[in-house]
């Protein structure tokens, strides 16, 4: 449905400063009834700050907020809920051991005298689910739900509180392409019933697919407003970054050499003892990028963990440079020259409370020149950090600043800098650009290709098909723990890969399903 003309939410000249930083400067926005307004910007552009002001988590230094034409002072989430604003955060705020219904009514409990009236709540939740196609079982435990379903619970939670202005903060960052499609369907049915949605993202394709209007923020200011009809990915990227951006990765031909990483029928179990990687065999040669494509949760994570020593190999062999490193310690594998950009950078790749400098030596701290015996050499660590910060364009106040103060893209650059600066012939990069801004993605892609050109073997795992296709020389598709096909990247098509990722056999690709395949992969990236 097209947007109405009634303004439900308006922000006028919002300014918010933090020590040393202006997070929002004179930001104004209007949200009309029944529309999807996309707020686009790089990490650190001020999107989340602005939304936190609208939601009452922060208060603006100047400027005003109007709801349905009335100036309001929102001093906390309970105020914003009263005004009909609901927010779905990037990280869900759910109690895992409670049921869906219990989570939804938490803080707004339906009562029968002094007792909880869960039945009334259940009925209302079912009603909401039906109205908005939000399929979820009120009696399921949240811990048993997929990420996509948990997000639906968050949306119902907002609707249950009669919100008709929904703020979705990077809602697709954690979703599979299919879940993203489903979310878009839900958003459309919400707006069709008169709700208004603010959709925060830095993913250009998604913004173009779902928004009615697009507002672009850069460095705390509104730099432009456009519509999907007028805009292209390239024009949006330029607005976001403030300069022209290369959407394609420039890379020459690969000159593959000897095999660096060899997997021989590797089987890996997950935490519950299920075979999540099933007899995978592959070779990655020096000077090539092998991309592993696949929908999240098909064993890619566990495969990488097994190669890098973080998870036991159940059977089969892992060889690096011809040496058997099956079930060797992470330290030993790292010392063979295997660099690893881990999938979960906040959890595994960084110690957030440590300085940038300490994070840059997280796995080399014990080697010269960073240590002599057991004594740390702080000067060498600092020099190293200053060098890498410059070479890898890490935006930080300095080497001693805690890495937690950096934006997502810059955190990832710290990891990339650390891993690529090591002497090594093997690079394993898992989701190297997930959730980070366009400018950083471009940079990281160039560095990965540069590694290849210098003769490193690169194993790239990514849920983003665009990334796999742009970087890889060969593409292996993983489905249900198996490599179902390995194709040369030059001849692989998006449709073919999409079908393989969905489990189709490489030999019997029926032509009539190609359209579906396109739909599945479209939402990627």
């Amino acid at each position, binding site marked *: 449905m097209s947007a109405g003309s009634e303004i439900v939410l308006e922000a006028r000249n919002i300014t918010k400063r*933090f020590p*040393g*930083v*202006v*997070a929002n400067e004179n930001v104004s926005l209007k949200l009309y009834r029944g529309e999807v307004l996309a707020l686009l910007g790089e*990490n*650190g*552009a*001020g999107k*989340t*700050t602005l939304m936190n002001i609208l939601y009452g988590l922060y208060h603006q230094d100047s400027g005003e907020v109007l709801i349905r034409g009335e100036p309001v002072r929102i001093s906390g989430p309970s105020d914003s809920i009263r005004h009909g604003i609901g927010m779905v955060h990037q990280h869900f705020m759910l109690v895992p051991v409670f049921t869906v219904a219990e989570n939804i009514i938490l803080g707004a409990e339906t009562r029968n005298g002094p007792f909880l009236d869960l039945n009334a709540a259940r009925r209302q939740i079912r009603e909401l689910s039906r109205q908005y196609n939000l399929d979820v079982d009120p009696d399921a435990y949240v811990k048993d739900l997929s990420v996509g379903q948990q997000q639906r619970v968050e949306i119902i939670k907002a609707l249950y509180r009669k919100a008709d202005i929904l703020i979705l903060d990077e809602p697709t960052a954690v979703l599979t392409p299919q879940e993203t499609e489903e979310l878009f369907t839900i958003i459309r049915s919400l707006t069709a019933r008169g709700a208004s949605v603010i959709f925060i993202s830095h993913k250009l394709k998604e913004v173009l697919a779902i928004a009615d209007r697009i507002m672009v923020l850069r*460095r*705390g200011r509104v730099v432009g407003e456009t519509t999907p009809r007028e805009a292209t990915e390239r024009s949006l990227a330029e607005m976001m970054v403030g300069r022209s951006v290369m959407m394609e990765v420039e890379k020459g031909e690969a000159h593959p050499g000897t095999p660096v990483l060899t997997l021989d029928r590797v089987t890996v179990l997950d935490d519950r003892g299920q075979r999540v990687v099933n007899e995978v065999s592959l070779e990655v040669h020096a000077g090539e990028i092998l991309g592993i494509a696949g929908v999240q949760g098909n064993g890619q994570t566990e495969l990488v963990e097994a190669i*890098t020593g*973080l998870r036991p190999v159940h059977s089969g062999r892992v060889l690096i440079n011809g040496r058997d490193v099956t079930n060797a*310690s*992470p*330290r*030993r594998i*790292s010392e063979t020259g295997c660099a*690893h950009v*881990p999938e979960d950078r906040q*959890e*595994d*790749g*960084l*110690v*957030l*409370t*440590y300085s940038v400098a*300490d994070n840059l030596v*997280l*796995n080399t*701290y*014990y080697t010269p020149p960073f*240590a002599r015996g*057991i*004594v*740390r050499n*702080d000067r060498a660590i600092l020099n190293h950090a200053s060098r890498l*910060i410059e070479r890898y364009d890490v*935006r*930080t*106040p*300095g*080497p*001693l*600043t*805690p890495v*937690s*103060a*950096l*934006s997502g893209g810059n955190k990832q650059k710290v990891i990339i800098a650390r891993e690529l600066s090591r002497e090594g012939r093997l690079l394993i990069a898992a989701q190297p650009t997930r959730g980070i801004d366009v400018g950083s993605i471009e940079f990281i892609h160039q560095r990965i290709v540069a590694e290849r050109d210098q003769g490193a073997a690169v194993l790239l795992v990514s849920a983003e098909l665009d990334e796999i296709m742009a970087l890889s020389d060969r593409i292996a598709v993983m489905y249900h723990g198996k490599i179902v096909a390995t194709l040369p990247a030059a001849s692989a098509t998006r449709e073919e890969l999409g079908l393989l990722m969905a489990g189709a056999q490489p030999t019997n690709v029926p032509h009539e399903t190609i359209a579906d395949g396109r739909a599945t992969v479209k939402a990627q990236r």
Partner: protein
Amino acid sequence: MERAGSQFSPRMDSRIQIWGMVHAAIVPIASVVVALVVGAAIIALSGANPLVAYSALFEGGLGSGRAFSRTLEKATPLIFGGLAVSLAFKCGLFNIGAQGQLLMGAVSAAFIGFSLQGLPSALHIPLALLVGALLGAVWAAIAGTLKAFTGAHEVITTIMLNFVAFNLTDWLADGPWKDRTPGNIVARTPAVAPEARLPDIVGVPLGIILAVLAAIAVWWLIWRTTIGFELRTVGQNASAAKYAGISVRRMTVLAMVASGFLAGLGGAVETLGVVGRFQPGFNVGLGFNAITIALLARTNPIAVIPASLLIGVMQAGASRMQFNSGVASEIIDVILALILFFVAADGIIRRVLRLRAEEGERVTLSSGRGS
């Protein structure tokens, strides 16, 4: 918080660090002040004059040379205990068992002290200290090993080991190692040999010198060595430590061993420096005050020294306070508990002072990690 447009700026970099340091000190200092104010209110409620009570307290702890040496005496084992708890915290472990480790150190140092006669001091003292420290280390290693290999939570195991240590040392002092001098009916070991007693070095007790050296050594270990880096990494983020090739198990055992070593050393120093024998009941509470000290010092080994001195002053001055103002010396325990309360529940102090939650390394009171 988003930092839009932050650029490389050494000024900002050092400002962030200095602010972090100032910030770290604000909450502990404010906690002490607030605890003293609340304590004053309680004293006033009991009908005494808080000013008289507090001035007697500090006079009794700092007023004279003798008062100060009593403070040092009280502070010495507290420094060791505070270091022990701080070091474990750095690795994400909550060593509630400092008390038990300290008792094991105290009783074994006493045994070496009284059972060997005629050794020169230069041999006897180091031997007794070392054995005390090692027994503390062994005691803590039990909890560390259980944590590393079975995931048993160290809070539970160290509490239980405390009870074992209480009863074991009681039994030793009342049984096989009892002081059999005619006329003695209390549970205590014989006095240690004079050669095993800690001397004063140019008027300063050897115990406090060792305590300060230990604080410097722990600081150096934590901040200047790769082992310290490994300990801290495990404490801050065990899964990142694993990724970085650090053995979480090894560090867990090592941190507990080092922590127990310090606590045991504290017990040994108390035995050889102050009490002169092992007598149950003498060291009770030390291991628990050590937790208060570690939190008050925000696990900073150097800050453990002033924190211990502060509590030492209060303990040394308690009887003078009771004498001068009639306030029961137990009020000191109330104030210590209030300090612990405000330091641990620092949200209260932050709200009063309108401080933001701090960046930088955090003290984790309890981590769920195991194997």
